[in-house]
């Protein structure tokens, strides 16, 4: 399904601020944050697309901004595309799309946990993988790991670098 096919033309008229590009045979729909939700609902509900399967949602940290990627696929029309949107790095707020795909519930919680992206009207936005009292969001590029967590040191001295390594009796 190349980019120039009629379906995508119809999509562009519907969501005019979107731009299409292609990486490694995967169609990217770059969208402005304002009409992220309309684009997603259109892709999910429209009978030309019927993208009912949200493969995953992820955030890419480009040092100056976040890029939020939704990878969608549809079982009926065998269409696949990535909707991506650029959001600010400092406390980004995005509308949650768990009402369209319930699968998004846990993906959004993981994004909140590892990147710090808060999703508005999410039913239960808490940390998913990390302990409740963890400070910071590890997958961000500027994350610095404290050397103690609840009194447990998080670093192990690199034995190899010490000069006095022991003799190996082969």
């Amino acid at each position, binding site marked *: 399904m190349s980019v120039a096919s009629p379906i995508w033309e119809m999509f562009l008229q519907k969501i005019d601020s979107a731009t299409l590009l292609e*990486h*490694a*045979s*995967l169609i990217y729909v770059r969208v402005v944050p304002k009409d992220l939700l309309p684009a997603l609902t259109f892709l999910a509900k429209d009978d030309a697309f019927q993208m*009912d*399967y*949200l*493969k*995953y949602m*992820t955030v*890419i*940290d480009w040092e100056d901004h976040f890029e939020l*990627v939704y*990878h969608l696929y549809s*079982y009926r029309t*065998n269409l696949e595309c*990535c909707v991506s949107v650029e959001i600010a790095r400092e406390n980004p707020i995005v509308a949650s799309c768990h009402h369209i*795909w*319930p*699968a998004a*519930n*846990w993906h959004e919680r993981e994004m909140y946990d*590892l990147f710090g992206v808060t999703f508005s009207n999410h039913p239960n936005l*808490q*940390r*998913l*993988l*990390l*302990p*409740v009292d963890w400070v910071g969001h*590890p*997958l961000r590029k500027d994350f610095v790991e404290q050397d103690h967590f609840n009194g447990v040191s998080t670093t192990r001295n690199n034995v190899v670098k010490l000069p006095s390594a022991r003799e190996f009796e082969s």
Partner: protein
Amino acid sequence: MNFETQYINDRQMELNMGPQHPSTHGVLRFIVTTDGELIEKVVPDVGYLHRSIEKIGEKVSYHGFMPYTDRVDYVSAMTANHAYARSIEKMANIEVPKRGHYLRMLADELCRLASHLIAIGTYPMDIGAVTPFVHALREREKINDLLEELCGARLTYNYMRIGGVSFDIPQQFVSKTKVFLQEFAIFLDELDRMLSENTIFIQRVANLAAITTKDAIAYGLVGPNLRATGLHYDLRKDQPYACYNELDFEVPVGKGEQGILGDCYDRFIVRVEEMKQSAKMIRQIIDNLPEGPIIGKAPKTIREKDTSSYASVESSRGELGFFVVANGTANAHRVKIRSGSFAAISMLEKIAQGVFIADLVAIIASLDLVAPEIDR
């Protein structure tokens, strides 16, 4: 997830199932509010096995990341290798020779057998029958011996390289696989007699936590769990990769023999059928292995400029995909791993309502959840 144990009312109590519990597969924890036997609400608490493999992906070169992909799903590690290799090959458009594809398929199918053996072994053990588990492990040991001969390791293989595979098959590998396939057929027949028709097993498992196809797709369920709901979708058939189109095999789909379509029994039967299909495929692969090199031309250090690629493989727990974003340096900018168990456990809260505690254990086992895939 804040869990001060509130005192709900005099009829309900909060039960902590896991992370040290005999029947949570790997390190998972379930906060169960129950009145003793019937479960009112299950809240899974994950993250005990979170090693942040995605952060390691940003620190290690493309070739160096391959051993870490084994650790994403250590029960069927070959499929994770295969998915990562395909994603990088797609990005840097590297050609894999035909024999390389065939060896990859052989390793994938052997690993699918090993993983399903664990799935159908631990499933009856959680329901009480201990012997099938030990026999399933005995068969899995034979597969581990074969894979050990092929690539040198038993669990975390690191067998595939970007552009192909690292070793060719040793001399008597084909005859040893044939001997294994015969013994495996005997085991499958025993398994049917011991479990698939056993009334206690059927009573315990039929009509339990049935999932409709619509809900499964909405929650992103994949693999045998999705096929058990009746949807005929398999990556190897619908988006064929690595010469799967040259093999002939059927995709088993749940038929609702013992009760509602998509219940725990269907998930079990779909996995047993898949093992038969995989055994058939292995026989076809070792019969007509093409000649030729086993690895294509892949540059020593891969440097890709701001492209990203996603490739997925039908692992034993459904679609396992790697989304890799490159930024021109020798290391990947971002590696996102999409795994089957993550979707399955996010659905547990919905399907495990109003069941018994004994059934919750059976549902967890039927979804074939594996902790490393959920927490990555």
